[in-house]
Every structure is written in C-alpha cells, then in structure tokens.
C-alpha cells in the first residue's frame, strides 16, 4: 500500500546545514551531562563550533561555491532548500554565534552558568532555520514552536528572579495564544485549498480567486488568522504588547539573541506563506493580493507606534524593545510589497538584506548594554551611557555606529536594508507607506541620536565590564555593520540569486 521512501529520495544533502546542526544539538544535550559545572566553557565552545560549521556550509551554499543535493526540494517538498533559506540560515547562524559569545560571561555574572542555555539556543536557531525552509504549513507550525518554546524557557532563565519569571510568563501566555490563532488559520487555509503544502496552496488559490465567494471567505479568514499568529512573533502592532515587557525582564543576553532570531524566523515564515503560498490570492478583478492593504496598514501603524513610544523611554532595554517593533514595521513594508505580482522576488530579497543588516546591528546594541549592566540588573538606564565616550571611547564609537545604522544613515548596514525595502515598496506602487517609513525614520533619529549625545556631550560616571568574548562580539557586529554599509554590493550580490522556489 505505502511505498517506503529510500534515503536517497529525501535529498538530505541539500539540507545539510540544518540537519547537521539538529544532530549536533541533540548530541550536545547528552554531552553536556558529562561536563562538570565549573567547566561549562566546553559546552559553549562546542556550541560555537557547531554553529560555525553550519555557518560555513550555509555561506558556501549561498554563494554557490558548493551545490549539494538534487534540486531545491527535500523531504518530499516539506523542506525547501533554495537561496532564500540559505540567506535565512546565514542570518540565524550569525545571530546564534554572536548570541553565544555575548552570553558566556554574562551567565557567569548573573550566576546562571548552565549548559541548558547553549542547547536551548541551538534549538531556537534550528526553529528559525526550519521556518525559513518550510515548504508546508505543518513544517511551518512545528518549526515556529521549536523557535518559541526554548525562548520561553530562556526568558525565564534567571528564576527565581521575579522580573525574569514575569517576562517568561507574559511571553508564554501571549505566544501560546498566538499559536492558537495560527493553528486555526492553518485549518481554515487547509479547508479552503485542500492541502497544507505551500506549492499546492499556490496552485489552488488561482482557482479560488475566480471561484465561489464562500471559499474565498474561508481563505481570507484563514490568511488573517495566520497573520495574527505570525504578527505576534515579529511584534507587529496591534500584537506587540508583550515586546517591551519581555525585553525589559528577560536576561539581556537572551534579548540580544531573541530580538533578532524571532524576527528572522517570523519574517521568513511571512515571506513563505504570504510572499509565496497565497501571493496570487486576489479578490474580484484585483491585480494585487487580497491581503496587501491589511499588511501595509499594519506596517504603517507598527512604524508609527514603535518610533513614537520609544521617544518617551528611559530604560535602554525597553527603548530597544520599542525600536525592534519599529523595525518590524519597516520589514512589513517589504512583505506588503510582495503582494504585487512581479515584485515578490524583489521583496524577498529586501527582507533577506534587511534581516542580515539588522542581525549585526541589533546584537551589537544589546552587547553594549550587557557591557553596561551590573550584577543586579541595574545600570541599563539611558543615564548610564553619559560620559561613556571619555571612559570607553571604542565602546562609545561602536554604539554610535549601531545608532547610525538603526536610524538608517548612509554608509551603515541599516541604510542599505532600508534602501532595498523602500525600493521594493516603490516597485509595488506603495508610495504612501514608503513615505511614512522615511518620515518615521526621521523621528527615530531623535531617540537614537540622543543616546549618542549623552555618550559624547554629557558628563557622567560609567562602569563597564568588557570580557574578551563580549568585546569580540561587539567588534564583529561593528565591522559587519560598517562593511555591509560601505560595500552594499556584498549584500545585493548575495541576495541577487534569491528567487522563491515558486510564486511571484
């Protein structure tokens, strides 16, 4: 009745960066049991090495130096190993590597040096990578949970510290609530199209667009609920409420990693579902996708709320929580642009470029905050950066670079990311939302540059703690931010190859 597929049919070679890391993560979970408590640096090194191997493989596959595997589909279409998933892999693995580097000494500082941290981080990374590669709603859902559940645990990693527990609880309840929406959305999409495979959905939506109204409604509600579920993950308004609280309460090393990883995963999934799966779902006679207006409205609100509320913040972790909401808004512009026929690939490229730029910059920002933070979690107020330029000129210079990049000032990675996002919006005829994006970037300059002002022109006592791995992480982030900004050619060339395996 059933034919058992052979190992050769699965096309495992194309998925190697991910599957190797999956085996590695399970292996480290066992190995860690035999590593004594005072030698957890071994686990940290093993984790970093595992991530490094995977990163090199992904980079080689992204640049086309090696082409392993047979075609872009693996595991019978459940896994798509195209250029977009390789780009997502590179962003996720870079973040994970920097995440391990900033975590090691921080965990000593807060007295929580445990092996669990490292493999939970690996599992989250795997979730992100599988999400970028998901070719089926089942894979998408499972990888979303693989991304989320370890993050709930990591947010509460400092228990019985009350703030950490509270942030974990909030993140957990709202995250579980969101995945409820996602499951129901998937059920309705399945009800309308009769398949959970994204390729199948893409084929089915063409008929639905010209078919009965009731099926259209089913698909529309399903798409809406999926958007709610994924919107929670990327912190889009009005599903952003958890973000500032979780960022403020969770251990800073977790925030450094999660602020980027959750976004990479969430946006990769949005590109897969909306940019590819239901990109051709149009209501009567429309040339653009039915969901485009909704997403650009959400993008506009997200940018406005994130940037304006951030102005009023004085706690750095909270401020950058709102800043991350604002950046989700910019990336959502590109998702909205993917709704216009013919712009889909360009939009997917813009998302990949923005994520790469954001990965370097945002991990760098939180690494600087870790350097400022004291043992009792204080020292992360905006007043604590006053006078940083006199006591730690290099650290202040790096922070200035990150602030410029987040604002989107030319010659930094952030500018390149915004450039491509706004360009995709222009191609998709979404001029108003691009204008809102530019204007809110100007607003954001106010609070980003205020930090620079405090560092250079205000007097104050600063106390920093800068162990070597942390210093290296900041250096790598700063160099990355600068190089990608000065040579945008690197990013655009990398992204040039990205075409979604189907859709468009």
């Amino acid at each position: 009745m059933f034919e058992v597929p052979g190992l050769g049919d699965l096309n495992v070679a194309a998925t190697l960066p991910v599957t190797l890391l999956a085996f590695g993560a399970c292996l480290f979970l066992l190995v860690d049991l035999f590593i004594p408590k005072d030698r957890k640096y071994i686990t940290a090194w093993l984790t970093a090495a595992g991530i490094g191997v995977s990163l090199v493989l992904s980079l080689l596959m992204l640049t086309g130096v090696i082409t392993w595997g047979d075609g872009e589909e693996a595991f019978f279409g459940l896994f798509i190993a195209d250029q977009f998933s390789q780009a997502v892999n590179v962003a996720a693995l870079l973040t994970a590597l920097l995440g391990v580097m900033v975590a090691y000494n921080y965990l000593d500082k807060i007295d929580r040096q445990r092996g669990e941290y490292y493999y939970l981080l690996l599992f989250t990374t795997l979730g992100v990578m599988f999400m970028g590669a998901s070719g089926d709603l089942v894979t998408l859902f499972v990888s979303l949970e693989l991304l989320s559940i370890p993050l709930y645990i990591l947010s509460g990693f400092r228990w019985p510290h009350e703030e950490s527990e509270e942030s974990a609880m909030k993140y957990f309840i709202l995250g579980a609530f969101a995945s409820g929406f996602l499951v129901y959305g998937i059920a309705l999409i399945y009800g309308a199209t009769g398949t959970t495979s994204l390729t199948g959905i893409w084929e089915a939506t063409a008929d639905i667009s010209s078919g009965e109204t009731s099926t259209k409604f089913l698909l529309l509600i399903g798409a809406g609920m999926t958007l709610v579920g994924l919107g929670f993950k990327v912190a889009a308004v009005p599903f952003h409420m958890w973000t500032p609280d979780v960022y403020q309460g969770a251990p800073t090393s977790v925030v450094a990693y999660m602020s980027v990883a959750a976004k990479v995963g969430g946006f990769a999934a949005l590109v897969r579902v909306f940019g590819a799966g239901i990109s051709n779902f149009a209501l009567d006679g429309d040339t653009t996708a039915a969901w485009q207006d909704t997403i650009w409205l959400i993008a506009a609100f997200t940018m406005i709320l994130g940037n304006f509320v951030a102005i009023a913040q004085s706690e750095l972790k909270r401020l950058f929580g709102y800043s991350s909401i604002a950046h989700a808004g910019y990336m959502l512009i590109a998702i909205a642009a993917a709704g216009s026929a013919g712009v889909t690939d360009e939009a997917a490229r813009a998302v990949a470029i923005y994520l790469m730029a954001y990965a370097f910059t945002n991990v760098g920002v939180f690494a600087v905050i870790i350097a400022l933070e004291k043992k009792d979690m204080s020292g992360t107020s905006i007043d604590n950066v006053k006078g940083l330029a006199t006591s730690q000129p290099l650290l202040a210079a790096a922070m200035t670079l990150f602030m410029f990049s987040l604002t989107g000032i030319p010659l930094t990675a952030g500018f390149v990311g915004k450039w491509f996002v706004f360009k995709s919006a222009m191609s998709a005829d979404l001029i108003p939302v691009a204008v809102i994006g530019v204007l809110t970037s100007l607003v954001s300059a106010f609070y980003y540059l205020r930090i620079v002002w405090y560092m250079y022109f205000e007097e104050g006592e600063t106390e920093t703690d800068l162990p070597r791995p942390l210093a290296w992480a900041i250096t790598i982030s700063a160099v990355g931010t600068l190089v990608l900004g000065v040579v945008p050619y690197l990013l655009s060339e990398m992204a040039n190859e990205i075409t979604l395996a189907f859709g468009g």
Partner: protein
Amino acid sequence: MEASEVSVELYVLLSAVLFIMGVLGVLLRRNAILVFMSVELMLNAGNLALAAFARQWGNGDGHLMVFFVMTVAAAEVAVGLALIVAIFRTKQSINIDDLHMFKD
C-alpha cells in the same frame, strides 16, 4: 448499518464556537491555569476543524497536522506548568493581574 451523516459545516461551526470560547477565556480569565486551559481549547478547536476538513477533502494532510498540534501542545504544557509553578513559588499567586512589574 449506515451511520447517520453529520455535515462538515456543522463540525466547522462547532469548532468556531469552541475557538471563540477559548479566545474569550484567555481574555477574561485571570487565573493562569484557566487561561492556559483556554489556550488548549483554541488548539483543540483547530484540531476539530482540521479533522472535519480532512474528511471533506478525503486526504491525510489534516490528520497529519492534528498529530503535530497535539504533540506540540503537550510540549507547551510542560513548559507552561513549570513556569506557573516557578511563579507560584516566588509570588504565592498565579493571578495574571499580579504580573505588573513593568511600566512605561
């Protein structure tokens, strides 16, 4: 003997009712465990809809998804209950209104 037919629409309607009850439960309940149960209700509403649609389409995709949702829900329960226990130890309360340390 032939079992009486219940149309797919009724199952989907029931699942929608369950889902809305779950959403209202999350929004209105204040006890963390009850909130948590409401989330499970939402997931199970999704499962019911998936199973109903799987019958309508006559393929296995829906059933497959149901199994994964159940597994993932179990994993979520493990983490969620652990968190609730940890919070109860420090605060002696699992009322989610007591979670208000952060302010703008």
